[in-house]
């Protein structure tokens, strides 16, 4: 089963690479979809079954559709006007991205040492247990306030986004 995780990780990284460097914005959006799917599988393997579902529902079913609509609304049909790579920040972008690598490598190795790994049996138990009910309980106790705040924020986002996108009468 570990193979599937490895494949998902490769899918995530490879698709993200294409998202970053492909000049065609539509292809970027499509590969972003695959990247999301790979991340969902990774969540599954980390014992986050409900989150994997949320990831697919929200990102694949929602955000991707939204992005595709926006691309199709703003591009000339079949002629993607913007050959996309190459803003003013190309050089800083490349430099910053390359410069991040050693830091990230350092952080990675250090963090790997710093993590006080949970005891394996506890980890296995955690990974195997269904999370939906637990998340529900948490949303009703410790995380009640953030949850309500976010639902209200979503309402605000709805009103704002619809107001912004509405065609002028």
């Amino acid at each position, binding site marked *: 089963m570990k193979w599937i995780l490895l494949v998902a990780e490769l899918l995530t*990284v490879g698709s993200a690479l294409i*998202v*970053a460097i492909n000049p065609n914005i539509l292809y970027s959006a499509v590969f972003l979809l695959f990247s999301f799917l790979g991340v969902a599988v990774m969540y599954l393997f980390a014992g986050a079954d409900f989150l994997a579902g949320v990831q697919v529902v929200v990102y694949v079913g929602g955000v991707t559709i939204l992005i595709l609509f926006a691309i199709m609304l703003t591009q000339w049909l079949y002629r993607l006007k913007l050959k996309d790579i190459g*803003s003013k920040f190309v050089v800083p972008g490349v430099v910053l991205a390359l410069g991040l690598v050693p830091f990230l490598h350092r952080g*990675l190795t250090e963090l790997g040492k710093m993590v006080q790994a949970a005891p394996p049996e506890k980890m296995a138990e*955690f990974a195997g247990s269904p999370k939906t009910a637990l998340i529900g309980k948490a949303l009703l106790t410790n995380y009640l306030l953030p949850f309500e705040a*976010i639902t209200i924020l979503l309402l605000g986002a709805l009103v704002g986004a619809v107001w912004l*996108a509405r065609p002028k009468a």
Partner: protein
Amino acid sequence: MNLLDFSNSIEGYLLVSSILLTLGIFSVLTRKNAIGILLGVELILNAAGINFVAFSKFHLAALDGQMVTLFIILIAAAEAAVALAIILRFYRLKQTIDADEASLLRN
């Protein structure tokens, strides 16, 4: 088998997430297209989510990381909706979504 074990440990998750973060930042900086910048932001948010989920399992073996990721995903959706609405508004105004053209405030 070594690679497989690696991929199932926290280092695998951290590696993937850091690569996503790097690619996301790269994408944000190099894209001219405003939607392309949004794609980069989504990558960065996913990187953060992977980190939280990974630490939730490997470090604490508790739920808190997953809760944070849940909130990240929820907010990311709202962010995408609003950002794309702004992009469409901008497009209606300027007939382009080239982010470098978004300099109305500069003058």
